[in-house]
């Protein structure tokens, strides 16, 4: 696992433009929503009071930055993990790696470790960028934020593992990433208050772990909510972590058995 993580870091070093991505995206990505909100608020704040009514805060900058950052975390994990096996398939190295006597699941976990390092840098830049460049007003509870992030790790990487296995099976990374991240983008309220969703969409949103990651982080970082006030979100995230981590492992095992039986490891 350590060897795979080391290999991932070597590849990352070989393509230094990823540094540009990790440094630039945390600040760049929320800007489209922020500028749109500025336009929607109007030159004299005509629309801002309407937003405050449904969101419970007029701090739309903090509201959007937190939602966008949480979604980007999921997005880079899906891309990184999801395309890792597919990239090896395209390069023609997957079959030889698959035949080595190393546990195959460890190869994927090693890749996840490389991705987690990237995500760590991403978060650090995001915090600095939000405070220094975007000047987001915060009233943070660090224990609350740490608890939400810590309990989000199992479900995000569990989903990423299931996803990587799915890509190996269906041999198409882009469309599957677009679909999965699209579902979260539409329902999880990354840029808008859930109160504006129609009833059925609201019910779907409540079943998505990303919704609870975002609402938990907003409460912890903008409203100073500690772990005690975040029990509903933390409980949901804990259950999601167990379910999605198990699903990731089971999907990987099933796909592994399928591609070895059908000899589809090297075809693309």
């Amino acid at each position: 696992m350590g060897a795979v993580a080391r290999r991932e870091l070597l590849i990352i070093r070989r393509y230094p433009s990823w540094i540009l991505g990790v440094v630039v995206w945390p600040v760049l990505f929320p800007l489209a929503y922020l500028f749109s909100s500025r336009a929607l608020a109007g030159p004299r704040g005509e629309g801002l009071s309407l937003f405050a009514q449904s969101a419970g805060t007029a701090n739309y900058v903090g509201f959007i930055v937190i939602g966008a950052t949480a979604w980007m975390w999921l997005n880079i994990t899906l891309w990184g993990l999801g395309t890792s096996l597919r990239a090896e398939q395209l390069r023609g190295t997957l079959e030889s790696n698959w035949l080595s006597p190393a546990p195959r699941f460890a190869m994927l976990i090693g890749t996840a470790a490389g991705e987690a390092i990237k995500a760590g840098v991403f978060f650090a830049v995001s915090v600095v960028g939000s405070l220094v460049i975007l000047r987001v007003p915060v009233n943070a509870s660090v224990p609350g934020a740490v608890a939400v992030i810590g309990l989000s790790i199992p479900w995000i990487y569990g989903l990423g593992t299931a996803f990587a296995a799915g890509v190996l099976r269906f041999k198409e990374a882009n469309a599957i990433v677009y679909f999965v991240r699209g579902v979260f983008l539409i329902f999880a309220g990354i840029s808008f208050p859930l109160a504006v969703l129609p009833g059925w969409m609201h019910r779907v949103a409540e079943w998505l772990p990303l919704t609870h990651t975002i609402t938990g982080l907003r409460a912890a970082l903008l409203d100073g909510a500690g772990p005690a006030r975040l029990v509903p979100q933390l409980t949901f995230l804990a259950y999601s972590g167990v379910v999605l981590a198990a699903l990731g492992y089971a999907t990987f095992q099933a796909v592994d058995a399928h591609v070895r039986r059908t000899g589809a490891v090297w075809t693309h």
Partner: protein
Amino acid sequence: MRRLLAIARKDLLLMVRYPLLAVSRVVEPIAWLTPVYFLGRAFSRGADAVGFAAWTGTGDYMAFVVVGWILSSYVSAVLWGMGFALKTEMDAGVLESNWLAPQPPALLLVGRTLASVLFTTVTSAGFAALAVLLFGISIPGRLLPAVTIVLPVVVGLYGLGFLMAGSVLRMRDANTLIDIGNYVLGLLSGRDYPVSILPRPLIVLSLLLPLTYGYDGLRAALLGTRPLVPLPAEIGLAVLFMVATVAIGVWGFGRLERRCRIEGTLAQH
């Protein structure tokens, strides 16, 4: 022309081979636009975006955004078509052999965008129909002035595409470069909002981009929004920028490509 069509035919064949990708090209913009729609609702009274109307002259926020997204899908088609195509060929190990074929590299690049632009036209039509159905927008404007402004803007994008392709050849990594380039271009040129809301230094940058006039003129023609400058002046600016970007792009690509040939890095990825 026959060679251009052969490249386009090959790309279309590849697209047909991955049908999920075609579906995602129609559905994905809807996924991106749905949060934008609900963001608009959060700032609106009913369907009327009151604050937005004060900036632009139209309260139909979603129609404004959808028109911008259709033009931006052509921007992506050209930038991805040229830059990302090179990276795919690098990874597949066929770039060097294609490059050694007796045809100018520029022809290879333009060829790679043909299928992409055709595909974009089809998927944009599907996307517009879905947007009308889901977001209830209406686009009441005139088509001829809209096409007159869009045409030089899209041709001008090829200049930018050449520069992008040259940079991909040098850096051997397309995703980050194209993703960020595409996104910044959308941010600065007002894909989703009027550029007048940008901070002052960014407005200056925005007014230097041909695409700004493309978005602005297209919306003025189709939605009756207030243009930055009168429409004929925007068309003139778009033509001027088109000539300049294509000249700079072809020149820049030639220099970057020559350097790769000298260093022998075409086969690396």
